[in-house]
């Protein structure tokens, strides 16, 4: 078992309320996408609101129209393959229909100790860190990736997991 996992938060500003028929293409896919995520190799955890199956009801200081999605993965590859190499991509390519054009970073990645369930507050802090200071080992994106070792996790543990896994 690796000593660390990769956490991600992405946020989107809704173009219309979730109940609006123009959002149906997005909302009708949510359960399917979450099911694909739950079964994806390397999936660890995702945020859901109390009594729900997704996080669409959760609001943050980022704004009333901003919905959040947050999950934890074993590696960059497992997260990448879910986001861009699964049925999720088909929804992603239609993002402009449902979400406002982001003016700043809308996704943040960071390493966490395994078995740590990150909070929304913590995730929003990481996003603000990325927005304010740019990518660093504490908050980064897919295109400017840092390793768990960069973030201070035990590199020896990382090596061991990779060679036995």
């Amino acid at each position: 078992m690796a000593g660390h996992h990769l956490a991600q938060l992405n946020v989107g500003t809704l173009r219309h309320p979730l109940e609006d028929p123009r959002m149906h293409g997005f909302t009708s896919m949510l359960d399917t996408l979450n099911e694909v995520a739950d079964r994806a190799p390397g999936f660890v955890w995702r945020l859901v609101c109390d009594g729900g199956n997704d996080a669409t009801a959760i609001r943050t200081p980022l704004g009333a129209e901003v919905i959040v999605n947050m999950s934890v993965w074993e590696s960059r590859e497992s997260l990448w393959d879910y986001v861009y190499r699964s049925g999720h991509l088909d929804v992603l390519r239609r993002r402009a229909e449902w979400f406002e054009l982001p003016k700043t970073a809308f996704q943040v990645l960071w390493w966490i100790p395994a078995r740590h369930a990150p909070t929304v507050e913590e995730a929003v802090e990481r996003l603000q860190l990325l927005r304010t200071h740019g990518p660093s080992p504490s908050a980064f994106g897919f295109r400017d990736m840092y390793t768990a070792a960069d973030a201070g996790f035990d590199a020896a543990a990382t090596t061991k997991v990779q060679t036995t896994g």
Partner: protein
Amino acid sequence: MEDIEAIVVLQDPVRRQLYEYVAAQDHDVSRNEAAEGAGIGRTLAAFHLDKLVDAGLLDTESRRLTGRSGPGAGRPAKLYRRSGAEHHVSVPARDYRTAADLLAEVADGARLDVELRAAAAREGRAVRDAAGPIEDLDTMRAVLSARGYEPRVDGAVLRLVNCPFHVLSERHPALICGMNLALLEGLVEDTEGVRVRMDPRPGMCCVAVEASKDNDN
């Protein structure tokens, strides 16, 4: 090794045949299989396969095919697969990749998804007009082969093993994969028997092609 040297290695017809055989398989290829596939002897195949590895065109690793290990398991077999490295030669020198990446970055940031998809669909229609009618999966397969998608038959579906926009699709997946789907949709727009859909899988192009369900005649 410079790109031009790697490409020159493929000038030898035997090597090229071996390379194309290995590249077309959905699994790592042993020397024996490659030799049979190219219709040449094992020793000659081994020689040329290693030339292809030296040129960076193939990757190789040693693995026991039996699944056994320890004494008596036999010598590990050398297995070959196509290298992921790209080789480009342009005379005179051109750098369209940097330009494409900059344009994609700006289009991605401005969310020009819809505009790009419209342009890609027009391009797909133009390709179809130039290629002649696409009537069924076979003609579609030939057109996709010519455009570098490396279609592979998987039951009733064509899977596209190679993404012609690979580097851009890794850097801007939502934008570029949407563009690619729109291009292929344009290509089959008037073809009743064939449809394309997004079905991304690790290591492959994001699109799958299949016979249209309403036209199973």
